[in-house]
């Protein structure tokens, strides 16, 4: 009965659950294939890849939760869902803004937006930790930073799981933000294409006129799917994670599969909106 760092999340997956999940995901693709135009199938596959990228990326983000706010565990002092939402939505806005400059530019914009948001957050978090709370960065999970080679045990306070934000966590945060932004933007762009193509017929209006509706719908669907994926990944992490060097990072295949299945179903519903 604990809010952080407790319960759930053993290793492995339930084969029956996995089977049901994969059948449901496949069923979603088949339904879209039957009811919607062929391009929508590729859009749905894009949405699934976007969801999987979000689920993968979130495992890089150093999440400290409430203990981090008291300097008792490393990472950024908030929950996975909030942090992932911040990074992902910053990326999504960056990518959406660049949507008219082409697919590749928009994806890059999304990734850079998410990465930039995490870079600024991690930097300011460390400024607060070092100059505000007076604590050095020390990981509790590894003795040596895999990138810089800095040693931690001498700096780690007794009774804590480490504190501050080591360099490896910073790098993890930026990579996580980039994956999150990339995935969110991919979902947005794929849905936008589908809506731009189908809405003129449904609303019997010109292709230019329907753009506000297409953008509004794709945006709100992308936000909704991002939150679903972020929270599923958060449930997979259960509490705190330090970054790519944390043993919990090895749980990511479960989240990638879970997010892909959830995105397939959500994407199917989003495409059915214009296929009916």
């Amino acid at each position, binding site marked *: 009965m604990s809010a952080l760092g407790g319960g759930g999340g053993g290793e492995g997956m*339930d084969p029956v*659950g996995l089977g049901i999940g994969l059948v449901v995901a496949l069923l979603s693709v088949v339904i879209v294939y039957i009811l919607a135009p062929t391009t929508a199938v590729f859009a749905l596959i894009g949405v699934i890849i976007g969801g999987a990228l979000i689920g993968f990326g979130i495992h890089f983000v150093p999440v400290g939760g409430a203990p981090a706010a008291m300097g008792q565990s490393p990472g950024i002092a908030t929950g996975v*869902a909030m942090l992932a939402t911040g990074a992902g939505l910053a990326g999504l806005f960056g990518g959406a803004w660049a949507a008219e400059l082409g697919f590749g530019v928009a994806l890059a914009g999304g990734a850079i937006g998410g990465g930039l948001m995490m870079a600024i957050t991690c930097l300011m978090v460390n400024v607060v930790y070092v100059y505000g709370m007076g604590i050095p960065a020390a990981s509790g999970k590894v003795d040596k930073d895999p990138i810089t080679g800095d040693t931690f045990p001498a700096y780690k306070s007794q009774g804590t799981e480490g504190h501050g934000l080591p360099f490896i966590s910073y790098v993890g945060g930026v990579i996580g933000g980039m994956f999150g932004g990339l995935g969110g933007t991919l979902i947005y762009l794929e849905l936008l294409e589908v809506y731009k193509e189908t809405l003129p017929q449904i609303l019997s209006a010109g292709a230019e006129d329907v753009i*506000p509706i297409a953008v509004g*719908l794709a945006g709100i669907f992308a936000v909704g799917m991002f*939150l679903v994926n972020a929270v599923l990944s958060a449930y997979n*992490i259960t509490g705190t994670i330090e970054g790519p060097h944390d043993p919990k990072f090895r749980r990511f295949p479960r989240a990638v599969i879970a997010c892909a299945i959830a995105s397939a179903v959500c994407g199917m*519903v989003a495409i059915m909106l214009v296929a009916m």
Partner: protein
Amino acid sequence: MTVEISASEGGIPHNNFLGIGLVGSVVCLYLAYLNVFTGMDVFSVFGGIAAVFALWWGTDTIKNLCSYGLGTGVPSAGMLAFGSGVIAMLLATRLEIISPLVIPVGAVVIAAILGAIIGIVADKIVNMHIPVMVKALTEMAIVGALTLLGLTAMASGSFVFSELVAGTALINVGGTMIELPSFAASALGGCVLATLFMLGAIALQHPFNACLGPNESQDRTQMLALECGFLSMIPVAVISFVFISSGAALIGFLVSVIGWAYTYMEFIKLSKRDAYMWLDGKPILEKGGE
């Protein structure tokens, strides 16, 4: 380092909340649809009441789910509810091609299917192993969808897709202002839904998050849920001045302000009842002041 989440036990059973919340919310949505039958838009306010019913029920669901310890804090459940709810709700608005009257029930059914699938994914594939996971996430998706449907009906006077995308904008043509149909000035094209999304999500995730602890009591948490619901209705009523007649919007605004003031005072009373001690704070007097 763990943080205990403790919730009170006993009190009104959860199924009562489920029944009253679900039926009350759907009935209020149909009352909001009276706008179409009567040709007026004064019934929009029932959309907000539908959202309050759903939020009141959702708060108890969150309490049920989060007392198992999710590992990620309480607000994540609210975000999941609205993330899946908004997807179900938007598809439901398109059910007008069958009949607009199907929309509220359709939203419940679509959200239930979507929520159940996400619940199975969370329970079996992510290995949460929480007994109430599938049921709770199903309920949460329905709560999200009904709340958004209600707030949308309150803000724009309708929950039908073809009316959500229809708006009019004043455009200056040669010095005279003329009204032209414009998708950008509609509830969906103007992305009012994004605002409603956050207003609803905050109202859903706050009450239990604020009240949890060894001293949690059911009536206080639920009163805070009502208070948050009415508080979210106030900005929605302000938004509704754009889309519906001023008189109808004013009624919505008054109902939400009165509802909020009453529930807020009740919540303060319950907080004083549950507190060990209460000291009424007074401003420090300035030297030479009154």
